[in-house]
């Protein structure tokens, strides 16, 4: 996984609720087999609208999205995360996220930050008041969002996920260190629940 320590830039306000993964990346863009090249298709339906926030010069290169509730709801497509990262997004700040999208973010090094809605509105206001030049900084090591006016807003993040992101840990490698425990569990289970194994034996 890509390491993540901090990101700084102009935060783009996209405060609508329930931005689903279909809206982030259309399914027909995912019939390729790779993880790359999706950035240009991120939000393609919204990008067709001239006043869409990421079309505005001030926000075209924003690495941070200020989002509404339930961001990333819908499908499990990890392509939604790859598309955002491909479009240069490193962090999404929202009051809540879709569960699967949230997990997918951490698998790739895109930081989802949960803040109260009022706080996100305040961040959007500070950015807009600065004519879209005020920068926001997200510091994962210190767990704070530094707003354009210099306020520091702390955020909570799961300890394990934070550590994995800061260090770019590989979950599979970590789990495989527990191979003996997994095999022992399986041996016990095959004795106790033979039916769960025998019926699909090759």
């Amino acid at each position, binding site marked *: 996984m890509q390491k993540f320590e901090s990101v700084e830039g102009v935060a783009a306000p996209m405060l609508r609720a329930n931005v689903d993964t279909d809206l982030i990346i259309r399914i027909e863009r995912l019939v390729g087999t790779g993880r790359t090249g999706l950035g240009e298709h991120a939000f393609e339906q919204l990008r067709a609208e001239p006043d869409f926030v990421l079309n505005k010069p001030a926000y075209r290169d924003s690495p941070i999205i200020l989002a509404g509730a339930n961001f990333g709801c819908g499908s499990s497509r990890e392509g939604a995360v790859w598309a955002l990262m491909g479009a240069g997004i490193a962090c999404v700040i929202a009051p809540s996220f879709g569960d*699967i999208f949230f997990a997918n973010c951490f698998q790739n090094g895109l930081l989802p930050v949960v803040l109260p809605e009022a706080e996100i509105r305040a961040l959007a206001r500070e950015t807009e008041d600065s004519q879209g030049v005020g920068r926001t900084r997200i510091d994962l090591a210190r767990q704070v969002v530094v707003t354009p006016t210099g306020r520091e807003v702390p955020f909570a993040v799961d300890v394990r996920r934070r550590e994995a992101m800061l260090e770019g840990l590989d979950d599979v490698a970590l789990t495989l260190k527990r191979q003996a425990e997994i095999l022992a569990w399986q041996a016990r289970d095959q004795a106790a629940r033979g039916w769960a194994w025998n019926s699909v034996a090759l």
Partner: protein
Amino acid sequence: MALTLFDKIFDPHVVADLGEGWSLLHIDRVLLHDLSGARALREVGEAGHAVAHPDLVFATPDHAVSTAPGRTSETFAGGAGLVAGLRTRAAETGVRLFDLGQDGQGIVHVMGPELGIVLPGTTLVCGDSHTCTNGGMGALAFGIGASELGHVLATQTLRIVKPKRMRIRFEGALPPGVTPKDMILAAIGRFGTAAGTGHAVEYAGSAVRALSVEGRLTLCNLSIEMGARMGFVAPDETTFAWLKGRRFAPTFADWEAAVAYWRSLASDPGAVFEVDHVIDMADIAPQITWGTSPEQVVGVGGQVPDPADAPDAAKAAAWRAALDYMGLTAGAPIAGTKVDWVFIGSCTNSRIEDLRAAAAIARGKRVAGHVTAWVVPGSERVKRDAEAEGLDQVFRDAGFAWRESGCALCVAANGEAVPSGARCVSTSNRNFVGRQGKGARTHLASPAMAAAAAIAGVITDVRSAA
């Protein structure tokens, strides 16, 4: 201590406590589909790992295959490579594949239960958010992303924080015209699309106990539309009778041992749920969505809501955008809205019972002249069973197209789409902007409601159509 069904399945599957609330959970079954299956198998190999347990992994092409009669994997050129890749990787890794034209092929969440791959009391994952469908069998089944899928294939485990417990009890008898699809749409309308976030949902109550397995699968299918990765129903005699004799169901002494264990899985009296809801079935009418989120739903006798009545400014803006996209007028009755397309299919409502319900409405009638209506069976097996019962003929005689199995118009990933601006009554699960095709307008409803709309040419109350 009184335990819930969820605890009774989750806890024994914990291989190791990873600390800070994290568990290493054993995964008993993995399903793969064409959209991500080949990549997942390839990436595991590229990372230098083997597929830990190919015997526990099952694959089928569904998303990116044409459903045109007589289709092959080449009919939709855009998906041909994905299917070819899945064949190659499955053969290399020893993963069982149910290919086009074979008994077992189908929408991955239709095929899993149908073959007896999904068993009560097991854990199952798939790189697809509607994996929750399989909870209808009494399994903990949930969707994961591509990276997590790679982790499961390589280790047969997943790192996970145990979700909280939520229960929704549906009490009472199903009113006329009301189906499991209406039950879950009504629940989403009431609680919202984020109500289940972070929760595992058990559906219970007398109405759920009375449902067939197919109905329970439909109910669980839309758990993710309520924000919940997993939804399930306690297994019971209905489940066991349905499962017995299926291809990968346990046999003989294993079957007896399994059933004895499965009987122990119901939530204990007094078990605590962090969130507990009750819905009175008498309050539920046949449902139809009007907007671009599954929570934007009304009873078919209702009206298109007015943004002026929205509870807050954000909702008002969302409603306005939805009305605009859907081309609807605030305050107008939803029934009577002219329909261009009807889609009966998807992992929500493409099983044999769904097709029977739709055929019962369509029998002896004609699809309205301006409507294009498709029936897409959920699997090769459903298709064959329906043909053996003559349902295909009922649909054909009424003017519906009878197609091969796959996801088709649910997600429009296979070159088939509802045209821009066209209005479609669909038995699928997502009415998102552009879901059925760019600019397509989707109204979610039950199979009977969809069939009734096809015949009438407008959104119509199934209770007056039958």
